[in-house]
């Protein structure tokens, strides 16, 4: 995992190199917005000995990006202290990800992606060391999506995120949510291209 950050650009380069193959599998040029809620949240043993990750939510938007699609995501992942000597913390993860969706059948779609971003941690209440802190994050996502209607889909995803604090924080989320697909607006298409 320590070299995960190195492998990200290499993976990006490698996958992009197979553009003719992947391009045929890429999705139709549609954008998506959605939200999801964690069914399960876990962390490494060190972090979980101090804090619980009880709940949280994500909103995201994705759009076609040459090969595959780009995703912008904001995740609120509060951390509840196990002991009174530690404060509760709010953790806002903002990430940018890139992945390749694959349409398995007309209704089923799956994908894998990588993401990097920032973890913004702050105390919701005043107290000792209340300055917020930001840290680099990187991780992997895989998801399975089932179309409920032409535009609405149910998406189950598993996200593994590493926050690069001195003592690494590894977060794992199993999530379920809804997404809404729409044709990429002309202005967005022009903006990206």
């Amino acid at each position: 995992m320590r070299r995960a950050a190195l492998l990200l650009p290499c993976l990006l380069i490698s996958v992009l190199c197979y553009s003719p193959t992947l391009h045929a599998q890429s999705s139709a040029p549609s954008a998506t917005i959605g939200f999801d809620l964690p069914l399960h949240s876990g962390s490494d043993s060190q972090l979980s000995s101090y804090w619980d990750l009880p709940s949280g939510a994500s909103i995201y938007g994705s759009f076609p990006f040459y090969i595959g699609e780009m995703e912008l995501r904001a995740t609120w992942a509060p951390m509840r202290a196990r002991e009174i000597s530690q404060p509760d913390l709010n953790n806002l993860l903002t990430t940018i990800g890139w992945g390749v969706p694959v349409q398995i059948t007309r209704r089923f779609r799956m994908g894998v992606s990588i993401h990097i971003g920032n973890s913004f941690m702050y105390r919701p209440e005043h107290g000792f060391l209340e300055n917020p802190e930001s840290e680099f994050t990187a991780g992997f996502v895989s998801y399975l999506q089932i179309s409920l209607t032409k535009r609405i889909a149910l998406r189950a995803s598993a996200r593994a995120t590493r926050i690069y604090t001195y003592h690494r924080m590894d977060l794992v989320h199993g999530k379920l949510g809804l997404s809404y697909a729409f044709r990429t607006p002309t202005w967005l298409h022009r903006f990206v291209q």
Partner: protein
Amino acid sequence: MSKQRLIYRIVFFRFRSVLVNKRVLVPVLALTIGLLNPLYGHNSGKEFPEVPHLSTLADFVSAETGLSFKYLTVYFSSDTTNTSSYKAFQTILTREEIQAASVSRLHELFLLMDHWNGYTINGQDWNTEANGSFILNNTNWSVTIDGHPIQQTLPGWVSFNHLPVSLNQIEKVIITEAPGIYRGTFTRGGAIHILTRKNPNGDSQDLGWDARVRMMTANEINDPGPYAYTPLNSPNEERLGPDIDLSTSYTTDRGYLQASGSVMRHRTTDTPIEQRVKQMLFLGDRQFASPTSKKHAFHLAGGHQIGSGDLSIRTGGTHHSEIAFLRPYGRDLPIQFRHTYAGIQWAQPLTETLRFQGSGTWNRVDPGQRANREGAGFNFSRNNRILRGALLFSGKDRQVETGGQVEWINTETWNRSWQFSQRQTSVYGRWIESAGPLTVTAEAHLAVAEGETAPSFTLRTDWHPTSQHQVTAWFSHSLAPDWISPDYWFWRDNGYPGISGLDSPVAAFPERKPATLSSAGTEWNLTPSGSFQLTTRGSIWRQSNLFLARRQFQIVRPEQWFSHSGTTFHTDQESTRGQISLRLRFTSLPGLTHTLFGSLSRVFSATDERRRALQETEARTATLRTNWEPVAGFRIWSHLRFQAERTWHEFDSVNGELYQDQQQLTTNHYHNQTGPLTQLDAGGSKRFWNDRLTLDLILRNILNQPYQLHPVGVNHELTFFIQMEVQL
């Protein structure tokens, strides 16, 4: 275009012996596979594709130790590119190259200068050299912005981030890497010329308004995060930015006007050092110095064509507070720095072949260190006024330039307890004669001050035997009296002012002989096509009559103050250094460009103290830069660097041991070391909104290998940058 192909087979690397270290092998293989996948994937088992320029084929062979990359076979078309536009010992960085590499601070331009080497302590200020020439001998190169000379910004140290120009204003950087006369001044290590964009789209003829905003912020990993509330707390790490550049310009067909402002912030210290800075720089009444350095700058420039002449001006100012300044006190003494300047230039054609250039420049630099609790500190200012005039004759096969320059320098402490004024007068001449494929350049420069003269001369030949080859050789000799380095006066007369230890500093300095430098270099450049370039270069530098001062320090607790406890002087020191280098640039698939560079430096001979002061191992450097633009508007790049160990002493080490993280706070030695370094940077940029918005994501020091350069130096850890530029 001719379809005839040449085949070059180049033995590239045998990784088995070099990359036995698993830590190196894994990322290198990962990167190599990543880079070569398109070649392998497209070409494996197929006939070689028809591509317009150059293609590559990776030949993987198995070896006992696993995968070994043995040969790189390079095919390229025979379309030739005349090398007459290429100039030896020169590097040109265009705006496109700078943007493609996602440069986020000015000092990162050095990373694109293959033949330059250097080190940084705090990540902001770099001491650099070209071709292995001068490290540890102050800065021997000069900087101009649109032709206006810019003074060194700190005593003996050029902080590139202090240069009065915004990053998003730069159109081109021309780096000359050999001794010579540049804008009337003889510089022993070359010169860096920064040219700003004069209209919205550079060289195009678009006129009118242009406004741009650039923002950058970055963060090092390894912060304590939530563990700050636990027994697992760790020191804080550095934050860079936000840096903001605002620039605007208005261009007509006869003139232009530019204005720009910059803000740069750099949080340089971790928690323990932050506390120490607060203790040292107690300002009274519960006021403390900030551990965050802040730079504010404003620049104004313009030009107009009047008749057949061209007039240009440039003025501005910079204020930078709480700079973590290394020399000579150690990193931990923030200083504040002001720089104001103004320049005017006039170029007037006199006849079809004769031209006059005149310029006047005024620079004032005010570095100062805040007083500590004991009231000790230093402040001084330096004024430079330069008047220069030159006549240039340009014939068919001959160019002649002659000119003169007068420089008035006034240096004083702010309380005027010490003052030094001087006038330096210099004349120079340059003769360039072309005869067929051969061009000979002779330059001579004579400077006079303090009753002493400093002659310098350079002889250079450029030979183009064919359109694909260029061979260049030069020889240079120069004399460097003390007054060549004005900062020396300050240190000579004041020792380390404000710090106890030198009661009679002036008397303590021995007489010095003028230092001399003899140097020679040669370069062969092969450019068989527009997508392939091979450059080999060698240079040798002989320095004599060098003066070294070795200083001992102790740390005073509880303020953790470096206290000067003695100095030993060494005169008549000398050394001979040499460097060879090879650079290969080629384009494989369209849009995929690689630059491979390697250099080797060696100290051939040196006196004992000189060798001790320059405790370098044989410096070995290898870099691989790759830039790929698979589609217009989207780029990804990587920069892999290997560098052998480089060590040196700023001050005597008390016990001779290397310091480790935070030990500097409690032990009494100061020893610097870089490497052995294996560093990988990578990033990508995407242009949006019809190229009006550019977004960069950058990862530096991906291998997260500490430099061992300074325990809290920037880029000590993996750093994540976000940069955005908007054209309004």
